């Protein structure tokens, strides 16, 4: 099981979402982040001039893929949509995941579950 962490341009993220939906990848989590890459930064205006900010708004998308073989497909889909070919298109990282639980599917264990401290060594 892997977590694909994609950091993309915020203006591309709607498209990425839709593209992944088409591929059947539904579950994912989005975070507003800022980032610094090799990109020089963005120029902003103040009242009398300009200044450069090297930290740029990005959108982080975390997608946990149960089936490892799906990872390349996810990466490809994201890249295809998010790529403009310019600096700042973003990165994708893949991190291993050891376990995944869907909270709504979780069932409490029968009564002994109360003494949680003890039964942790299974």
């Amino acid at each position: 099981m892997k977590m694909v962490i994609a950091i993309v341009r915020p203006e591309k993220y709607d498209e990425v979402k839709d593209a992944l939906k088409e591929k059947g990848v539904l579950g994912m989590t989005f975070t507003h982040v800022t980032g610094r890459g090799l990109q020089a930064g963005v120029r902003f205006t103040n009242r009398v001039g300009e200044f450069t900010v090297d930290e740029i708004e990005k959108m982080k998308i975390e997608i946990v893929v149960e089936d490892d073989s799906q990872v390349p497909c996810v990466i490809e889909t994201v890249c295809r949509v998010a790529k403009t070919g310019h600096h700042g298109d973003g990165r994708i990282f893949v991190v291993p995941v050891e376990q995944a639980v869907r909270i709504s599917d979780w069932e409490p264990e029968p009564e002994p579950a109360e003494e949680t401290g003890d039964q942790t060594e299974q």
Partner: protein
Amino acid sequence: MKKSFILAAAVAVLAVFAAAAVLGSQDSAAAPGAGDTGSISWIMVSSVLVFAMVPGIAMFYGGMLRRQSMSSIIAQTLAAIAIMSISWVVVGYSLAFGSDAAVIGNLQHLFFGGLTEEASDGGISSLQFATFQMMFAIVTAALIIGACAERIRFNAMVWFLIVWSVLVYAPMAHWVWGGGWFDQYLTVLDFAGGTVVHICAGVSGLALCIFAGPRLAGTRKARAHSIPFAFLGAALLWIGWFGFNGGSSGAADEVAVHAFFTTQIAGACGMAAWAVAQYLTVGRVGVLGLIAGAISGLVAITPGAAYVGFAESMLIGAVGGVLCFMAVRLIRSKTKFDDALDVFGVHGIGGIWGAISTGIFAKSSLSGVDGLIYGGVDLFVGQIVAVAVTLVFCFAVSYAIIWVISKFMTVRISDDEEAIGQDIVEHGEPAYL
């Protein structure tokens, strides 16, 4: 291209001051006169209130868009203030109120030259009247911006407003209030600007929005980014409306109080009616619906504020709320126009209903002319003709202006730029950190 426009601008500015230097001497001296201080006070207050609507519009519109367009809407509204103020002083007022010619005024009041500063006969001076009217010009221009929000380049908008202020707004004001052909050939009542301000803004906005085409699907379906700002803007609009309608009698008298009261109650009824309509249709009501309803009611009462009775004003407001609700639903679902902030749906339709309802409910004891329910047909017909002319004229000329501008510069931002948002692309100034 860019350079040449800057040059043009610089030349224009110089020309302006050159002309001004000559004309400046026309300023009449401000000798202490014996006007009615109560009315002078109230019209100054009303001017302030109308001016306060402008930031209201910026917050109201901006709050309902994506956060990436907030600075852009504000910048465009500010540009409208500068452009309309200057244009009105330089030439607009003179074109609108310079003479009684049927089509357009003259140039005798360029740079406000020759205006009287002395108030007389318990009225206000023409300087004060011109200043009050200036605020209306600004509000109308600012209203337009909402229809074509998130698409039109700042520079194009600036040039559009400059030309529009002369070719569309000044003639409209002249026809309705300045003694133009509406006054001469029709029986028309427009107390505080149903045609000049609301229909005109709604239709001009529609022209821009049709010319520019719709926004990207993603931008279009975005949620309002700040309900409190939208609310605050709507509150400023409502507050300003008391000056807008209340000041339109030009004095602090019974007429002003009557208009003041009908404004309040029509706004409240518009809000209540929209809320009920939305509740029955959607099953719940939210802030955006409530404020849209209030504005619909306020727009609807504008042309007849001083001319209709109390119960009628409640009815006009309530029907305005329901009508605009249905209009906005219809436009959104049935047409392809991307009127981003329902400027036509609310101000256009509300203004049309307001003008017609004035023709229906006007009472001769208040307005001097009878509306349809009192057997007066002239007024009713006159109102409908006025509405039709306004619709056609404002749409056609606005469309022509933006079409001409598009020959000189890019009018619409590109899709890529739209996705990033005008705040960053055009102004380099994200609204929030």
